[in-house]
């Protein structure tokens, strides 16, 4: 089968839309392989706008890993903005890949990476634009197999009607296994049709095929049981874990778009997983254990990536980058290596720790020190014990003051609101803290020209975390607490004018809550919202709370449940949770105990330093912590283009924390 490019038909439409460059592809390091040269064709989708999706590391890694295979090709597709989507429908042009503008409809697989649940309506829009039936059961052998991945795939039940499979955990190896299965099935003449293909895929470790599991509900609306409908599929699906990250130095050739994106820098993942044990953090729970890249592995990725991209900044990415066992040495040696080359180095997501200021200073040695970001997450010491992100108020103030004293002009502090057991007083402490930080900062820096920005978001309980049982705070509660916080900050204008407050109202968080801990019944709500015109739900100008409320009320009523039932209801210990048959390795009893410890404000350590506390992941998954130090060091590279001037540009740690709240 040959597949024709949609570009000639798309091009006249592009003259009529906003930012047309996002649809033409041609990124540096993009790849186009001849269609007939391979057996298996993957379309990889990030279900949000191009500018958000194109820097996504996960998709970039899979794109490269798949294209390296001689028997497969991968192309990328992103959510199309409404202006173009309208023109495409009129002109009969389907959802296309940006690489070769091939119709998504013609690929064997459509892999969709869900970093957040708010991308679900964009999946439906893309399927519809592609001409692929919305419901998995309505597809035949000619349609792509729709595969969901990413963190949200750890509870894919709300989208189980629309996806054919979900993949749990790291994608590097499992995409190869899936490719093998599809290649063999096609080679054999597609025996047994689509159902047989899905059955074979369900036997790949980490692949969950929802249609082979039946869910029944009890009279109270909770799940009675989840049962296999075939004996040849696993009763529980285990996540995949890539060990030895040095063996997987991807992306080797990071994509560099012409269009502006949300991350105008190159990223190198310095480790994966986190065992700090922050109880709100799904990312930290589902990516265990910690697996570090070695200092030398990181050094060569930075070097190769800079050469391949021409970026002027490198972000050292992870869930808590300062925790890398060789971070001090790494920061120093990278700063040495790139001194005089106008190359910036940055650390996103830093814990409140004086050491992080030292690191940021090192990375910005002689560059601009504009903004530094810390994430205390909880306003009071009490609530920080509840979420297991303990730092004393004194340490926090001291750390931030140190930053101001070292020439950082702006400090951003990330908090959450609506955490379990939280009261107004916990949130009001954020104001006290900010005031104290400014007072001490003015004194330490001898300047009034310092700012503190408090950024605060509503907490959404996530599956596979100790807070999966917790009642989510209502939108009204969140809005009330944000209001009292704002008033408290503004109480003293002399200080308050140096404090910025950034927040969102509580409504989108409630919908995210519904989608995060929803079950299969929530699929109807998603479909209804999309049919009523909903998409781009992560964008405030497109998100409609009313549309979601109407859809939830009407679509959930026949089941005797409602939005509150999914969000503000606390779950009991033995309730069957929609994702119980999906195994992140975390022992459910341990999660429950940790939840109880949260309520009693008991902390838990980090198994990298305090010994194993039996979360269950390593023995269940057959994995182990992989950390250094290795004792190795970066040899100075002869960086071509290095010049004698000393002007390292660094704008350290201004990126948002990568936690999934």
């Amino acid at each position, binding site marked *: 089968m040959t597949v024709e490019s949609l570009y000639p038909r798309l091009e006249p439409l592009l003259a009529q839309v906003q930012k047309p460059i996002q649809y033409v592809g041609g990124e540096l390091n993009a790849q186009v392989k001849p269609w007939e040269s391979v057996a298996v064709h993957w379309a990889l989708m990030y279900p949000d706008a191009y500018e958000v999706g194109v820097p996504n590391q996960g998709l970039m890694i899979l794109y490269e890993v798949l294209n390296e295979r001689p028997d497969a090709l991968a192309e990328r597709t992103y959510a199309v903005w409404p202006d173009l989507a309208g023109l495409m429908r009129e002109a009969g042009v389907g959802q296309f890949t940006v690489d070769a503008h091939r119709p998504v409809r013609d690929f064997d697989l459509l892999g969709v990476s869900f970093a957040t649940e708010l991308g679900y309506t964009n999946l439906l829009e893309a399927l519809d634009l592609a001409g692929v039936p919305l419901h998995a059961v309505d597809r035949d052998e000619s349609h792509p197999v729709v595969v969901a991945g990413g963190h949200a795939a750890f509870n894919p039940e709300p989208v189980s009607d629309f996806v054919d499979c979900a993949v749990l955990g790291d994608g590097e190896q499992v995409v190869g296994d899936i490719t093998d299965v599809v290649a063999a099935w096609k080679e054999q003449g597609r025996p047994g049709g689509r159902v047989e293909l899905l059955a074979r895929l369900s036997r790949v470790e980490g692949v969950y095929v929802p249609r082979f599991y039946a869910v029944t509900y009890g009279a109270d609306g909770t799940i009675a049981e989840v049962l296999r409908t075939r004996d040849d599929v696993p009763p529980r699906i285990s996540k995949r874990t890539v060990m030895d990250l040095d063996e997987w130095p991807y992306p080797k050739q990071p994509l560099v778009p012409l269009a502006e994106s949300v991350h105008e820098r190159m990223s190198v993942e310095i480790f994966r997983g986190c065992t700090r044990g922050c109880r709100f953090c799904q990312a930290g729970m589902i990516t265990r254990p910690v697996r570090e890249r070695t200092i030398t592995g990181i050094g060569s990725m930075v070097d190769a990536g800079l050469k391949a991209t021409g970026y002027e900044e490198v972000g050292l990415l992870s869930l808590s980058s300062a925790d890398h066992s060789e971070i001090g040495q790494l920061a120093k040696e990278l700063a040495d290596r790139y001194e005089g080359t106008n190359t910036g180095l940055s650390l996103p997501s830093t814990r409140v720790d004086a050491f992080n200021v030292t690191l940021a200073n090192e990375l910005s040695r002689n560059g*601009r020190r504009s903004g530094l970001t810390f994430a205390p997450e909880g306003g009071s010491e009490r609530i920080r014990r509840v979420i297991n992100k303990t730092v004393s108020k004194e340490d926090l103030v001291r750390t931030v003051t140190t930053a101001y004293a070292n020439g950082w002009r702006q400090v951003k502090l990330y908090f959450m609101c609506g955490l379990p057991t939280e009261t107004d007083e916990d949130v009001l402490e954020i104001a006290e803290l900010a005031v104290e930080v400014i007072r001490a900062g003015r004194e330490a820096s*001898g*300047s009034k020209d310092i700012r503190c920005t408090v950024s605060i978001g509503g907490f959404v309980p996530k599956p596979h975390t100790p807070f999966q049982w917790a009642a989510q705070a209502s939108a009204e509660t969140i809005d009330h607490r944000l209001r009292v916080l704002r008033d408290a900050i503004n109480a003293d204008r002399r200080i308050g004018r140096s404090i910025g407050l950034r927040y969102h109202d509580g409504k989108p968080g409630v919908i995210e809550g519904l989608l995060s801990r929803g079950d299969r019944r929530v699929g109807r709500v998603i479909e209804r919202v999309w049919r009523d015109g909903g998409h781009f739900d992560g964008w405030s100008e497109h998100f409609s709370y009313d549309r979601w409320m109407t859809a939830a009320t009407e679509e959930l009523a026949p089941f005797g449940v409602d939005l509150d039932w999914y969000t503000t209801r606390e779950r009991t210990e033995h309730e069957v949770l929609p994702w119980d048959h999906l195994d992140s390795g975390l022992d459910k009893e341990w999660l429950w105990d940790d939840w109880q410890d949260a309520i009693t404000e008991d902390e838990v350590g980090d198994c990298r330093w305090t010994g194993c506390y039996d979360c269950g992941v390593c023995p269940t998954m057959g994995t182990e912590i992989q950390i250094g130090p290795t004792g190795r060091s970066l040899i100075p590279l002869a960086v071509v*283009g290095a010049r004698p*001037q000393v002007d390292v540009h660094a704008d350290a740690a201004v990126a948002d924390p990568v936690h999934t709240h």
Partner: protein
Amino acid sequence: MARTPDGPPPPPTVQKLRLRYTKRGPLRFASHRDLARALERALRRAQVPMAFSAGFSPHPKISYMGAAPTGAASEAEYFEIGLSARCDPEQVRRALDASLPPGIDVLECVEAVEGSGSLADRLDATRWRIDLPGVDTGDLDAAVQELLSRDVVTVAKRTKNGLRDIDARAAVVGAEVTEEAGCAILTVVVRQLTPTVRPDDVMAALAVVADLRPPLPPRAVREAQGRLDDSGDVADPLGPDRAVRSSPQEESTPV
């Protein structure tokens, strides 16, 4: 305690190069900011020894001028770079061209001759070629004659501050209609005034004077940019630099 960068100031600019490049194929949809980003990254990949501004956020010394609008292709975009070490212009051209995506092709690179004036001053007109598939050549010709016969043609132009009325006629120096492979082609020389009259403004003017409304989106290519010469065409803006050839004294070539 204001911090200042330690160490010596960055090395000065020792050579200025002026370059012509294209915006072809799908890359016509790139905006001037997209192109600036692509060029700066390509300069880094090609390891061209750029001169930088001083201070905590040093910027490479690059001047862009007269960018073609998003959606219009171009054979004649220009920019100027300052280098901290002397290079052979042709080697810079080749290295930069190799590190840019296909469609952004660096066609020429010359050393700026000192005292020859600024490049921006030499870019005061554009010759556009506008392909108008589906438009009858006769209709187009009539519309163009009508446009040229007027003194003022007011069209609504979309600006950052909403729609604004501008005169699209005054900037038009000359226009010619031809046909190629059955497609009507409008070649128009437009003076670069403020606000700029772009191909879509010319098309809007044709709609105003003769109700000419192409059934398909027109495709515009900037064929040349430069100073208006006596014949009403545009002169090569790099000509004055090319006229005086100077050979590089100490060569430090990009790898």
